[in-house]
């Protein structure tokens, strides 16, 4: 979250845009727990505040809090200049420090949208929120899903991750015994570590609570995407065991991107022009207008679009040259 807006124009990341819209739809399903409009949203909005604008528009969250890690007064003014809504409160400071300053007696949707990799500061936030979030709340975490870093020199992948997490004790046993992490396994390993941290926090919170009133959580989504850097996002609903029926009423499992386990949903934007996307969208199943197969397009790209169509951003930014 620190100054990443200087490197990335978040509006131009199609996978991220799709992810935001999918998340919004997941958040809307929280209604059995309480009115969506009454939820507080806590995020890391960058200067673009894309998530804030979208979530307020679709979900009606109010109030909203954006955390930014900068102590530069000039940069802080730039954030203030870009705030798109009056109900957004800006908090400047590291999330490890700012999250504990918030009251946590409100149902909240929190999206810890880090642009960095998984490190101990991420686990600190997850552990804190596991201890504090109200039942019926939603926690989402996004991190860079790679282990490569030119600063790490010749260290092994396991050593790099151990150093970032501050302790070998956070590494899943099968990874520690294997002694290395393959690039394709990184996202799954990160999911295991994040889920365990959340579970540890919930277990601590449940210590001494009677059966039936313990807190629990369910994973609702697990996205993988790449808008330049490989990213992953995980989303969990935290609720009281006694609210299991409310959770069932949310019907998260009917979401096309619902993933409760270790297999991610890949958000792969299609390589199609705007015209091609429009044509694919106009084709319906009956083929009254035109059959998709008739389009001179690679089926794999069409498939990608079909999986994301409902969530594809309908706005576009034209580059003037």
């Amino acid at each position, binding site marked *: 979250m620190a100054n990443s807006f200087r490197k990335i124009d978040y509006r131009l990341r199609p996978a991220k845009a799709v992810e935001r819209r999918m998340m919004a739809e997941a958040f809307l399903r929280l209604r059995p727990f309480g009115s969506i409009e009454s939820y507080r949203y806590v995020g890391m909005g960058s200067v673009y505040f894309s998530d804030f604008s979208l979530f307020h528009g679709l979900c009606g969250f109010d109030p909203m809090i954006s955390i930014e890690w900068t102590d530069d007064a000039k940069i802080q003014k730039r954030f203030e200049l870009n705030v798109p809504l009056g109900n957004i409160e800006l908090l400047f400071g590291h999330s490890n420090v700012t999250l504990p300053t918030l009251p946590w007696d409100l149902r909240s949707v929190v999206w810890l949208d880090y642009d960095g990799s998984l490190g101990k500061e991420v686990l600190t936030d997850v552990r804190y929120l596991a201890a504090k979030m109200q039942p019926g709340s939603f926690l989402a975490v996004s991190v860079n899903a790679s282990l490569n870093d030119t600063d790490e020199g010749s260290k092994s992948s396991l050593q790099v991750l151990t150093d970032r997490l501050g302790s*070998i*004790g*956070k*590494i*899943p*046993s*099968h*990874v*520690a*015994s294997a002694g290395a992490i393959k690039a394709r396994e990184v996202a799954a390993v990160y999911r*295991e*570590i994040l*889920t*365990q941290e959340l*579970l*540890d926090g919930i*277990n601590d919170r449940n*210590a001494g609570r009677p059966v039936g009133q313990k807190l629990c959580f369910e994973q609702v989504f697990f996205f993988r995407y790449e808008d330049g850097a490989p990213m992953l996002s995980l989303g969990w609903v935290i609720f009281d065991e006694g609210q299991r029926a409310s959770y069932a009423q949310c019907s998260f499992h009917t979401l096309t991107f619902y993933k409760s386990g270790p297999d991610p949903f890949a958000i792969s934007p299609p390589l199609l022009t705007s015209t091609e996307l429009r044509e694919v969208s106009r084709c319906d199943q009956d083929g009254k207008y035109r059959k998709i197969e008739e389009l001179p397009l690679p089926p794999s790209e069409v498939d990608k679009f079909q999986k994301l169509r409902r969530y594809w951003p309908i706005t576009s930014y034209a580059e003037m040259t």
Partner: protein
Amino acid sequence: MPEKSPPLESNTVNAAPTKRFFISVLIKDINFMDAIVELVDNSVDSARTGSGGGNFAGTVIDIDHTESEFSISDNAPGISIRTAKNSAFRFGRPDDAPSNPGAVGEFGVGMKRALFKMGRHFVVSSATAEEYFSVDVDVDEWEAQTETAPNGWTFVMRTAGTNDDPAKKGTKIVVDKLYDYAIEEFKSVNFDTRLIAILKEAHANSLTSGLEIIVNKTAVSAIPATILSSQELLPISYEQVLDISGKEVRVRIIAGVGDPLLADAGWYVYCNGRQIEKAEKTERTGWNSAIDGGETVPKPHWQFRRFRGYLFFESDYQDVLPWNTTKTGLDVEAPAYRRIRADMSSAMLQVIDFLNQLDSEPDGPLAASVAAAPRVELTNLAPNPSFSFKPSTRPQRPKQSRISYLMNSEMVEAVKESLGARSNPEVGKQTFEYYVREEGIDCVPEESVDGQ
């Protein structure tokens, strides 16, 4: 709990313990991981007794768990029926219990406390070369039994007999009806990682002497501890024998210099091969006194990040070793430890004096001695009563200085292009060398400096 008290004499008060004291109270003094390590200690003791010393070749300790059951088994010589009946399951070690020279288990609480810590049902099965038995304890049933006095407490031996296959010896313990925290731990994806990391340190000595420990099919491997040692940098390493109330305790002290890692700096203490302190940097080991005259608030220890001290206590009489009952720390009042404190302090001051000198000349000849010294395993150190060092006689690298300055980025890019340099440090280096060359400055060393 229907536990009847014995009739009191008119001038006595009842001081008898209750079962609850052992089942629910004593377990508060040990954490879950340490309870498992206690069970490993038992197996190590058994193997040590069987091998008549510290050779563990061929001994395997196998730890396994699911989310609802824990087991530990070994192929050590096992527990005899006589020992099981008379002492192994007693709460506290009886005075007439058979001695177990060099063992880790001493207090007679370890195994029972560990089992009570984990769950409410356990089965201990053991076979020596001659016989076997198993004891099955349902803690709920045992706690509910009525009896009149603690000396009437018993567990039931479910099976016992002659071992027809002497090759099949060893002990196996299975625990189930686990407590919630035990289930949570066993479900954790990183539980084995944490257990392995603890075992690696707690039993480093035994692991490097041939002991095999397997945690859920993953072998635990330990790296032997090392310290920097050369002709120019000789660590302290000597052994002395103490007589503690007629009982012999051998102590080996090692102190010297290691890698510059603050987290690893401090004292490491072992009793009969079991690590009880790791990187200890408090007044318990005299650290503050040695560094700042006993200030209660520890000062920054950055320049002492290379300090390493090791204490190895060995004795056939475990009661005189300076450990607490959970074997997770020093008993600083133990005579064996108090007798060695002055030597520890002396060793520490010698090394700290060297580190202060090293800190004042980070690029000097002492640093060269440290840089050149190889890591040597503690077991291979030659006896040496005092820390000795001398400046390196090797040719020194020319002393280097760093130059750092900021320039306009566009100018830097232009110069970079002009020089054909690929990085800003290279621009700095080349422009410096250009000046030296063009001005004819007569100072060019044989080896060019590394520009940064």
